[in-house]
């Protein structure tokens, strides 16, 4: 039964690893995109639809 615990630990470990990797990916991706948007806005580029939305 000792080795069985190892299998359990391994499967929970991979599960945790996969989920954490997934969360990290989504999170860093989101942060990078937000930063790009901010950089573009700082450069004075606005989306045309956003300009239209504000005019309403």
């Amino acid at each position, binding site marked *: 039964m000792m080795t069985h615990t190892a299998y359990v630990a391994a499967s929970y470990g*991979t599960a945790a690893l996969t989920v954490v990797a997934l969360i990290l990916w989504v999170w860093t991706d989101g942060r990078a995109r937000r930063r790009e948007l901010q950089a573009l806005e700082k450069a004075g580029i606005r989306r045309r639809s956003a300009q239209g939305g504000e005019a309403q």
Partner: protein
Amino acid sequence: MSENSLSIRKFSDLANPTRFLGLAGRVLPWLVGLTVVLFAIGLYLSFTTEGDYQQGETVRIMYVHVPAAWLSMMCYTVMAVSALGTLVWRHPLADVSARAAAPIGASFTFLALVTGSLWGKPMWGTWWVWDARLTSVFVLFLMYLGLIALNRAMDDPGKAAKVSAILILVGFVNIPIIKFSVEWWNTLHQPASVLRLGGSAIDPEFLWPLLVMAVAFTLLFFALHIAAMRNEIWRRRVTSMRRQAARAAGREA
């Protein structure tokens, strides 16, 4: 009738990406909080309940394996519905949803395969058998990866949307056929597998942690999916703003 039109209006309300971003910003913290709480409860339950007298400790693998396997299929269903949304209703977010779901679905399918094989080794003495169920999950995994590769291969999201929607639907129609033929293929060569866990009805002892973990994983999927959709919308905005910047630079010069 009026109820119907109301629901249609809500549906098209969601179609506005800006509104979706606002909604996502409000919903996500709650979703994340709920997911964390459920995972805490689920993990507590799955480690405190007793092991099965036949399978011993390894039964605990079930609490991650079954939800992951369930999500691998649900995610594909979500993608298929999104593909319908792209092709039939031309819903602008449908394609975003399908695109964002593919990597998440692939991850959960991978998780289901790995935990399944970690469960199989002590139970059956081998990491992998070409059993009907396992094989179809593996085929599903390959389909996810193919869709991701297809999405990556095309840089114009508008064009990629329709093509990958078609592929998703073809895959969805094909899944039952694959499953059926794989089952038929395997039983042809090898007596029906005895390696199914469904032999005995699930004891409530195991049912509770399993249910909680399943709900927790499902919520995790939705949280990730919404966040990934948000990223995808941002990514498209960045792209369109960059193109605009290139045009603007041309005008100035």
